[in-house]
């Protein structure tokens, strides 16, 4: 695609997204909002998986750390927005720094297992430490901050716009990061840790920083989740939500940040629409997942590139024929 066409396309998408609260039903707006805050989690996951080669199942745990920090601080009237949100992100960074030390030395399947365990520990704490987290009843009654409630033309769009802006900033931030020198070093680590060590790079420190960046983004997702639904419940950070992120990112294409967002959109949409018809909707999602893994292992974004590649091949073949 031509560069200018690409930007026009992005602009149209952006304008459409911005217009959704005015054009579409409340149901559609709610769904888009949901897709957006879960997208942050997908970006968090895709950044580590695609760029650094680390599959982290602890992504929902950081959503939980942020969400619970806000929920606890606000229901006990200790701190309120924006200080509660700042405290939440601070907690996420501290937790990621500590977790990072434990998981950083591992790679591949061991990293996955360790993050799975960490995720389960956070979930178990949320469930069991009832005096603080209110256990399986969850913490309720968290109200949306006033700054997120502004209206435009009588429509309450504050939360939606702030979330949209955050998703945009995070997306472009991560894309810029992947193209920076640091991003290339992370790719180098993805391909061969030992090679990067050989070339004299502080591989452990870089993985640690990447882990914290990823956690920070998941933390943002937690902030929006808790303010949107007003409830923080252990089910938000259980194994199912880790699986949901994993499925969404594989749908979209593990090497693409935009793909992660699209994948989350697809998974969420299917979940909502299919669950209206059948309670066995997970079977259908699972079958689709199987199809993607078998026939398009690089996901939707990967397939788009493949189509482009096929197109290039066709052009080559066609011009070759003309010459003859």
């Amino acid at each position, binding site marked *: 695609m031509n560069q200018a066409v690409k930007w026009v396309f992005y602009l149209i998408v952006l304008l459409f997204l911005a217009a959704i609260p005015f054009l579409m039903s409340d149901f559609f707006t709610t769904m888009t909002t949901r897709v957006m805050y879960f997208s942050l989690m997908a970006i968090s996951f895709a950044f580590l998986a695609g760029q650094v080669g680390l599959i982290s199942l602890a992504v929902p745990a950081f959503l939980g750390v942020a969400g619970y920090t806000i929920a606890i601080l606000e229901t006990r009237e200790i701190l309120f927005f924006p200080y509660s949100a700042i405290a939440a992100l601070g907690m996420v960074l501290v937790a990621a720094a500590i977790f990072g030390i434990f998981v950083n030395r591992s790679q591949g399947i061991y990293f996955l297992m360790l993050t799975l365990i960490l995720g389960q520990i956070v979930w178990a704490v949320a469930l069991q430490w009832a005096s603080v987290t209110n256990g399986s009843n969850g913490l309720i009654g968290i109200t949306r901050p006033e700054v997120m409630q502004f209206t435009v033309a009588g429509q309450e769009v504050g939360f939606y716009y702030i979330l949209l802006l955050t998703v945009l900033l995070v997306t472009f931030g991560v894309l810029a990061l992947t193209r920076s*020198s640091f991003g290339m070093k992370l*790719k*180098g680590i*993805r*391909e*061969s840790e030992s090679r990067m060590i*050989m*070339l*004299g790079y502080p591989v452990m420190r870089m993985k640690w920083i990447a882990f914290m960046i990823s956690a920070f983004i998941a933390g943002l997702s937690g902030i929006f989740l808790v303010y949107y639904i007003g409830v923080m419940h252990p089910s938000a950070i259980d194994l199912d939500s880790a699986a949901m992120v994993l499925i969404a990112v594989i749908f979209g294409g593990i090497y693409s940040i935009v793909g992660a967002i699209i994948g989350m959109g697809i998974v969420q949409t299917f979940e909502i629409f299919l669950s209206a018809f059948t309670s066995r909707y997970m079977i259908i999602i699972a079958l689709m997942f199987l199809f993607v893994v078998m026939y398009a292992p690089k996901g939707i974004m990967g397939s788009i590139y493949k189509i482009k590649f096929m197109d290039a091949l066709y052009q080559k073949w066609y011009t070759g024929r003309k010459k003859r």
Partner: protein
Amino acid sequence: MTHPLLSVDNLNAYYGKAHILQDVSFNVNELERVAILGRNGMGKSTLLKSILGLEKIRREGDIQFDGQRTTANETFQTANLGIAYVPQGWQLFPSLSVDEHLEMAYTPSSGEFEWTPDSVYELFPEIEARRKVGGTKLSGGEQQMLAIGRALVRNPRLILMDEPSEGISTFVIERVVEVCQQMAERNISLLLVEQNLDLALRAAQKVYILVNGRMVYETTAEDFKADKESQNHYLGV
């Protein structure tokens, strides 16, 4: 006080129980080009890896860079002192393009001369034509150029080069020799380990011979070139 840029003193290195390097001592002075010659399996690569603290090599003895002990360092700490490495087999990354390799490694320098990706392309126009190509899709010679370029853009004070003659054509060997000869002009010293006598004698000023993990001979490149008897004795050429 003047001290050598790199000084290795009584270095012993072990892979597990295997005693690879035995009491190795040598110096690389500022702006000097030094070659360590030896046949296969004499410990040449191990020597470079020991200097950088790579792999599971146990080291005894003293290694100093610019007067600082480096034996307790992590590899990246030693590298950050100003040592760049051109490893054997180049060790490039398949998913990074030529551009990205250089951009990744580029470390701005405050010195009077700075290597940038552009100045590497000036030096090696061959790889400029292939900027967008993945590192491992290049030919052997181009990969060698990229590996050297990647070391240069870190703007180091010393470059360690492991068998640059391996897997490349005589034409590219010429290019490598030229680049090595120009390094002093750009304030870079060179430590080269090599089997290829011709390349080493032209690229370096000082020559050490490593046999079975021991430094057995030290001379200038010029003298060694003339001394066919020693060449035959130590290297069997």
